[in-house]
């Protein structure tokens, strides 16, 4: 190393690297060029301001400003619309963590989230496996399954409320066929929560199935053929070949569904208004109740921050795993 390096050593100090010889040769042109480049840079900046400016300004005013303001509000005892506020530090957070209703809200949120996300994933995968087979008319089935996903949560809530009507609904009729008396869906716990979960599943099932279907179609046929030649049953092929290859899809869906489930509001608002006796009040719904029904905007901001941190944690886990190429992990 040193023997090769020594002959070059005298030239090294201060000498520009080989490539920089060219700019020196064009030195006379440099002022004009850089003026041209500066002009171009200026127009580019101008255009950037013009094109990206409005969107960025809207993001700053309606997303980043409220994000920061919400954190600040969470330290205040302040009622919506009130001219006065009192600084309480972490008081709102302390109140939330010690409030008697918090345990119930967290449990409800957990049950709702696990049931909707888990249910949608399992049923969605089943539906995708079914629609991945060469069945005639599967296009129609796919359309019907996906349609609820494009509908608004509030309208969906209303139409299902009628489905669940304990006396005149379609569900009590179907239950009657197999000799089951309809539960009091609207009033008797835990049925209101079950009802909301069923509706959420119906609305999102088609989406999960469609994403899984795309994943299934990317599974190479020769891998499945190879498994079949090795004598693997269909169930074994699914478990040992197909499902591992679907891990990235599963992970994506898990996170997407978690985020959407934790933020669901419209359907609960339409069907139960968080009741009866708070039995369908999720974390998200409690933010609405605290801020816009009880008017406790400061306290509600603290609850919103808690939800925000939960969502952020979910996203952070996603980013971590996406970088690790999940399906080989």
């Amino acid at each position, binding site marked *: 190393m040193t023997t090769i390096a020594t002959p070059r050593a005298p030239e090294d100090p201060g000498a520009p690297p080989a490539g920089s010889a060219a700019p020196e040769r064009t030195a006379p042109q440099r002022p004009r060029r850089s003026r041209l480049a500066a002009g171009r*840079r200026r127009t*580019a*900046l101008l255009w*950037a301001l*013009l*094109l*990206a400016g409005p*969107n*960025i300004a809207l*993001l700053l005013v*309606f*997303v*980043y*400003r*409220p994000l920061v303001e919400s954190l600040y509000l969470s330290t205040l005892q302040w009622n*919506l*619309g009130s001219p006065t506020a009192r600084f309480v530090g972490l008081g709102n957070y302390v109140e939330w963590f010690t409030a008697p209703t918090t345990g119930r809200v967290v449990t409800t949120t957990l049950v709702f989230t696990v049931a909707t996300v888990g249910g949608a994933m399992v049923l969605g995968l089943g539906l995708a496996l*079914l*629609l991945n087979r060469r*069945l005639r008319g*599967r296009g129609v*089935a796919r*359309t*019907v*399954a*996906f*349609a*609820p996903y*494009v509908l*608004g949560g509030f*309208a969906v809530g*209303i*139409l299902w*409320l*009628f489905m669940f*009507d304990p006396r*005149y609904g*379609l569900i009590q009729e179907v239950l009657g066929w197999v000799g089951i008396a309809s539960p009091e869906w609207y009033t008797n716990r835990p049925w209101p929560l079950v009802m909301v979960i069923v509706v959420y599943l119906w609305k999102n099932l*088609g*989406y999960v199935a469609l994403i899984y279907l*795309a994943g299934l179609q990317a599974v190479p046929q020769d891998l499945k053929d190879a498994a079949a030649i090795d004598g693997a049953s269909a169930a074994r092929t699914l478990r040992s070949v197909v499902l591992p290859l679907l891990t990235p899809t599963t992970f*994506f*869906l898990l996170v*997407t569904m978690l*985020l959407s489930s934790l*933020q669901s*509001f*419209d359907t609960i*608002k*339409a069907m139960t208004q968080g009741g009866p006796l708070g039995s369908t009040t999720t974390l*998200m719904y409690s*933010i*609405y109740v605290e801020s816009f029904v009880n008017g406790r*905007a400061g306290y509600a*901001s603290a609850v*919103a*921050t808690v939800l*925000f941190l939960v*969502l952020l944690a979910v*996203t952070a886990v996603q980013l971590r795993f996406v970088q690790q190429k999940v399906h080989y992990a």
Partner: protein
Amino acid sequence: MTAATLQQSARRRRSPQVGGYLTMILATVVLGAPLLWMALASLKAPDELYQLPLQWLPAQPDLDNYAQAAGAIPLGRLLANSIGLTIVGAGLKVALGLCCAYALVFLDFPFRKVVFGLVIATLMIPPQITIIPNYTLVASLGWLNTYQGILVPGLASAFGTFLFRQHFLTLPRSVLEAAELDGAGHWRKLWRFVVPMSTPTLAAVALVSVVTEWNDYLWPFLVVDDPSTMTLPVGLTLLQNTDGMTNWGVLLAATVVVTLPILLVFLVLQRRLVAGLTAGAVTG
């Protein structure tokens, strides 16, 4: 291979197919029934709705429930509001995303990466945390019960910008460089070259925006209580509160008015809409 084993394997292959068809039909019926049931119920007379055993088909289908719904809330006005706000909102959202993504991909300006990070990070900020401060801002601007109050706070495009950017990165640079040599400015490059090369993405972003604007509930519900600026989903709340569950026919007729337009959009433009709604899965 003997005829017997051939027959056997054929039977084995056929029976799962039969099972598959049965399951598929069952799933389709179960998933489709609620929508059908709603449509049928909206055409029934009250005594048919509250009759046991259940009446499957309306004896004399009529639009009485729709007329009553239109009498209880200004259904026509709400429909017009929803259509107008959806078109304007989705249009602006697409334009904002398109222009922002063009700047992020084709323009060289300082802090470009920071700006992109700023846009992407908003995808992680749940709208719920922004609601209280945005509500107080909109209220202080005197924007409660106005179209701009419903529209403006949700206009900023993060998802659209992201999708457009992903697509723009795949466009052939040579075409744009050639356009530049021909003296095309950025405005011309955007509309004459980039936009025509981006129609699938454009359609996907536009359709997703249409669906989300049309269905948006919480925000318009908070900022509007005057029927003259109200949107359809919020009007449904109004009807639910006034008529309650005592008048299912009327409530369901209004629900049909809310859901049918978006269902039609879905049926006609299914492929593009699904591509947009599932785009997140492909782009990660």
